[in-house]
């Protein structure tokens, strides 16, 4: 069953220079117990999409249209009080930088208890018991003593565990993790990812993993959407995306991954900059940086089309099936040749 269904979501921010089209017509869904990876570079609209889902974009500065359904319940346009009930209970969210995401003047215990006390009518003692329990679940040693500590007494990885604990304390149905491992070092990253995997099995929740790290996606996600310029440009099962990506931007992303066994030459990069969301390019958002750009790309936005591989795999590109297959084989061969060298 679908835990979260987003249809044609559009978020625009009003600025003095005009409307910033941060998210344009994004649709996707997350099934119960599954993990959706959301990939894209900075400014691709991936974070804003989920801040909109959470109702955390300022309504005075933004315009939101489309539909966000949580187990069938429409959330866009829901009252502020209903949204507050949903946040923290049905949807938990973890943010990118654990160093700044916890209030520095309150104890860890207080901040965890707050999440319980806002939503449940329980005693402070019971809330404290829940706080310690959930800290144990995220593997904080000496949890019953460490609840008294302040955030600055924790390391980055420990703070991210606390953030996860805080998001999980009310048993949410969906966990949205916005680049949860970006600010952590590699060994800590792996621990946090293992932890999230284990907790997903325990809590049976759907996870949305927002990241720019394809490695994280490969490891954790079941499905993946690639975002570019505020749009979904490719969506598929994870295995399909790595085996047969259908879009030049995804090729670029996969090509720019550092590989351990390569000869130490320069990393591939996608030339140019992400598009301005204030004045997005006409046609395909990727056209100014695409090496296979055609005239039609500069005039018309490609629809999300179904790939030859199957119904689940959709992409936006004007190139025909044959050309895409040919280019991707060539790219793959080049990468393999480089690996072998």
């Amino acid at each position, binding site marked *: 069953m679908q835990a979260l269904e987003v249809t044609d979501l559009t978020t625009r921010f009003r600025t003095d220079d005009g409307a910033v089209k941060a998210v344009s017509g994004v649709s996707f869904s997350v099934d119960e117990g599954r993990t959706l990876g959301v990939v894209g570079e900075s400014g691709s609209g991936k974070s804003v999409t989920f801040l909109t889902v959470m109702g955390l974009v300022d309504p005075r500065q933004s315009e939101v249209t489309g539909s966000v359904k949580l187990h069938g319940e429409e959330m866009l346009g829901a009252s502020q009080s209903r949204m*507050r009930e949903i*946040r923290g209970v049905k949807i938990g969210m973890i943010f990118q930088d654990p160093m*700044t995401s916890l209030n520095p003047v309150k104890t860890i215990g207080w901040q965890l208890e707050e999440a319980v006390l806002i939503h449940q009518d329980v005693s402070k003692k019971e809330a404290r018991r829940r706080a310690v329990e959930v800290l144990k679940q995220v593997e904080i040693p000496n949890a019953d003593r460490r609840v008294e500590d302040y955030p600055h007494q924790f390391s980055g990885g420990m703070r991210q565990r606390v953030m996860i604990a805080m998001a999980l304390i009310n048993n949410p149905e969906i966990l949205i993790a916005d680049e949860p491992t970006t600010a952590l070092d590699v060994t800590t990253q792996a621990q946090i990812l293992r932890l999230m995997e284990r907790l997903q099995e325990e809590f049976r929740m759907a996870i949305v993993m927002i990241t720019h790290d394809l490695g994280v996606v490969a490891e954790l996600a079941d499905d993946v959407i690639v975002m570019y310029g505020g749009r979904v440009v490719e969506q598929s099962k994870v295995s399909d995306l790595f085996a047969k990506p259908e879009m030049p931007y995804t090729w670029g992303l996969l090509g720019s991954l550092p590989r351990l066994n390569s000869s130490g030459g320069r990393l591939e990069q996608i030339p140019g900059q992400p598009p301005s969301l204030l004045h997005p390019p006409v046609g395909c958002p990727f056209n100014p940086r695409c090496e296979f750009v055609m005239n039609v790309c500069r005039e018309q936005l490609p629809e999300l089309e179904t790939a030859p591989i199957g119904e689940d795999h959709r992409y936006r590109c004007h190139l025909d099936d044959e050309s895409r297959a040919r280019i991707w084989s060539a790219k793959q061969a080049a990468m393999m040749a480089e690996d072998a060298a």
Partner: protein
Amino acid sequence: MTFVLVGISAHPVWIGLILSYVVGFRLHLTPIAGYCNFFPGTVGAQCSGPVNWAYHLILPWITFMILFAALYVRLVRANVMETMSEDYVRTARAKGASQSRVMVQHVLRNSMLPVVTILGMDLGLALGGAIFTESIFNLPGLGHEVINAYNFNDLPMITGIVVFSTICVIVFNFVVDVTYGFLDPRIRPT
């Protein structure tokens, strides 16, 4: 913001004279100037008692306050706005905290930290401001005394007042530093 702009720009002497003229002389709501003793029945005093005391001090208080109120409104406003955009405020919202809860529990205390620091440094400014206020309203006080001493070239008196003010500033700053420790766990000695 008009209040802030006027409060910061207008000199206390000007504010004091205008208030004394309009409220005291024209409207007869308060005394124009002068002082009353706090303790009732003070020997040799023209008038005394807490009510009379406060009645005579209303205008000096307002004069003295306007500059600081304006400075601090601006400071608190800037700090609150800055704190509002902190990541942990977003975390609190993501937990489902209401707007008032976010403001009171998460924004207020964090935005008070810089304000308290400035408070300690501003005591010197306050003593300076007192010189103007006391002169305008003819109040017997440290500021008034230092002007008198200056006019009579009374060096020991000036030295005494300066030393006393210095001690006040140092003690007050110490108090502020201790308060800071209460407000912010990060600088508490462990």
